[in-house]
């Protein structure tokens, strides 16, 4: 009844790609034009918050290990926190720009959870490789949302932030449950399917 783990990754990749494209457009056109329509300013923060909410069922149903539950639960919390803080800021309910620190926190927590919950080495299988790669990408790229707290109008930083999100979605789309990576596939991983 439950979908394969790779399908959940692909579904989230689609949502994350949409968030990344919205961020990229905001970086290109600027905040003033982006917020000309009231609904648009809530679009990507709302999507991010929604993805955080959808991570709870993932935590509840994919219980193959405790550490997976902790990882999915922590992603759900930080994504809802960052998305919710962004919604509060664009609505005007929150005023301090320091609320934007929730994004670098979300990146570091997400990256650490990715690295910690992948128990296998990099070249065990494609999914192991991508989990390590995603983890380090999040940890290193946390510098972009961190700098955006102090330089919120920097188009370059906004574009780097957006492209990081798009890159993450590409990595998630590349995920397979059992598939080789650079010709390596551990016999312990199982037999690959199409």
């Amino acid at each position, binding site marked *: 009844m439950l*979908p*394969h783990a790779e*399908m959940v990754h*692909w*579904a989230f*990749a*689609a949502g994350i*790609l*949409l968030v990344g*494209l*919205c961020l*990229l*457009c905001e970086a*290109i*056109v600027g905040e*003033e*034009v*982006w917020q*000309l*329509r009231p609904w*648009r300013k809530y*679009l990507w923060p709302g999507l991010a918050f929604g993805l955080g909410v959808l991570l709870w069922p993932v935590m509840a149903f994919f219980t193959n290990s405790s550490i997976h539950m902790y990882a999915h639960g922590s992603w759900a919390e930080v994504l809802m926190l960052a998305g919710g803080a962004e919604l509060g800021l664009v609505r005007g309910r929150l005023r301090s720009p320091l609320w934007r620190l929730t994004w670098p926190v979300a990146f570091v927590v997400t990256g650490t959870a990715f690295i910690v919950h992948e128990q296998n080495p990099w070249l065990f299988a494609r999914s192991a490789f991508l989990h390590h790669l995603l983890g380090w990408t999040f940890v290193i790229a946390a510098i972009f949302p961190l700098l955006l707290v102090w330089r919120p109008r920097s188009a370059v930083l906004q574009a780097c932030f957006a492209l990081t999100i798009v890159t993450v979605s590409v990595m998630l*789309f590349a995920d397979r449950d059992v598939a080789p990576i650079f010709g390596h596939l551990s016999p312990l991983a199982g037999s690959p399917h*199409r």
Partner: protein
Amino acid sequence: METPFVHRLPAAVARTARVRIVSAIGPTVMAAGVIWAILQPYRVTLLHPRGQGAWWLLIEPPLLVIAVGIVFAVLVARPLVSDLEEHDAAAR
């Protein structure tokens, strides 16, 4: 001495470039999904649906990419380009 080279991009050209980039993002994403489907047709379960489970028919990565491109182009890029053109016209 006069030179025919333009050293600074006029503001109008930069604005047009922004409109073009925003307009191109959706079709580029759609094209990426189509190319992926051509390169890896076995990832598109709709091409061989017999005996496949519901999840395999619902979540097909190349089709998801195409769907994101369509949703983005229609719901986000189109009104954004319209706003950008109006904003630029008002600024002139």
